[in-house]
């Protein structure tokens, strides 16, 4: 009897460890796949396009974006990405990278902001914003997120973002938190990062903008958030709206200390 019990415990233990092993292997092979792809990450094409767009004189005012202040002074690009979203005195708003770029394109170059906001992702000037964001993010590659939280509005945006993150609604009664508030869970083979804290280097907020191999598109954080809401069967949030910037503030502040790997490559 005793032998039997020991045997069954052994069988149980070994079946659990085999399952754990198989799971590990699947995740590892995805990592290997990503490492293979990373060598020829087409995000580099968007990076090059973004850098050229930053320096090129464009728009009705025929100006470049080199005087654009991304939070560290006019024209300073390096390190700007890991401190966004933040408060900007000239617009009296908390802005993320894309929202700030649209402001700069409007004030410096005279490009119509409403047209950018209403365009489809990957089309016209909105595609240019994504390319610019890709290049600017790349300039901060390896640096650690450290969003400022000293201004009153920055604190408000963080709190609003937190509430949006936990707000359950829509046809499926879903919230961001439904999938992203626990450790070590997955949808099929995709790891779901816990975004209520720092999920680690290059995970979650620190992994975008990224190139998606499956559809050949370069995705910015705004595009990523838009798709999160699509997956939750919510109405689409407005591009660079305060709600999306607030969510970005919440994710960005939580990611404090995480190293950015942008531009990343995704399945």
């Amino acid at each position, binding site marked *: 009897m005793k032998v039997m019990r020991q045997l069954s415990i052994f069988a149980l233990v070994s079946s659990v460890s085999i399952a754990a092993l198989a799971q590990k292997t699947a995740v590892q092979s995805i990592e290997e796949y990503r490492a293979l792809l990373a*060598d020829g990450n*087409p995000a580099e094409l968007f990076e090059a396009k973004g850098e050229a767009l930053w320096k090129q004189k464009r728009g009705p005012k025929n100006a470049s974006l080199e005087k654009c202040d991304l939070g560290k002074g006019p024209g300073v690009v390096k390190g700007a990405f890991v401190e966004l979203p933040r408060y900007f005195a000239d617009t009296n708003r908390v802005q993320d990278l894309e929202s700030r770029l649209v402001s700069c394109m409007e004030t410096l170059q005279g490009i119509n902001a409403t047209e950018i906001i209403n365009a489809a992702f990957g089309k016209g000037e909105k595609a240019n914003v994504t390319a610019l964001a890709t290049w600017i993010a790349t300039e901060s590659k390896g640096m650690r997120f450290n969003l400022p939280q000293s201004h009153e509005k920055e604190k408000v945006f963080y709190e609003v973002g937190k509430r949006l993150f936990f707000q359950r609604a829509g046809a499926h009664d879903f919230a961001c938190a439904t999938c992203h508030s626990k450790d070590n869970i997955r949808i099929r083979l995709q790891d779901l990062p816990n975004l209520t804290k720092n999920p680690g280097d290059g995970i979650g907020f620190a992994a975008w903008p990224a190139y998606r191999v499956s559809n050949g598109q370069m995705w910015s954080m705004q595009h990523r958030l838009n798709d999160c809401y699509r997956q939750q069967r919510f109405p689409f949030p407005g591009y660079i709206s305060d709600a999306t910037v607030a969510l970005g503030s919440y994710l960005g502040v939580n990611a404090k200390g995480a190293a950015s790997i942008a531009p990343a490559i995704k399945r």
Partner: protein
Amino acid sequence: MADPMRIRAAVAGDKATVRVLMSHEMETGQRKDSAGKVIPAWHITEVTATHNGKPVFAAEWGGSVSKNPFLQFVVKGAKAGDKFSVTWKDNKGESRTDEATAT
């Protein structure tokens, strides 16, 4: 005009590994748009590369190659400072040539 390629050529010993990223839609001609109409094929048909002006690589491509393709090949007898030039042509008659110096 087509966006530029990204070309890197890294020398190790007497060989250079050339890595090329091309910016292209690579539409297969088999997909349909939201209105149900076939999206016309638009893809690279020919890729050639030269090493200091001498042809070293030629390929015929079709619609099965991915969007924004990545190409890698090794050239023997290369040294730092050598010039690599890559050209693609597509089925609309458009083409693009870019150059890189081996390091």
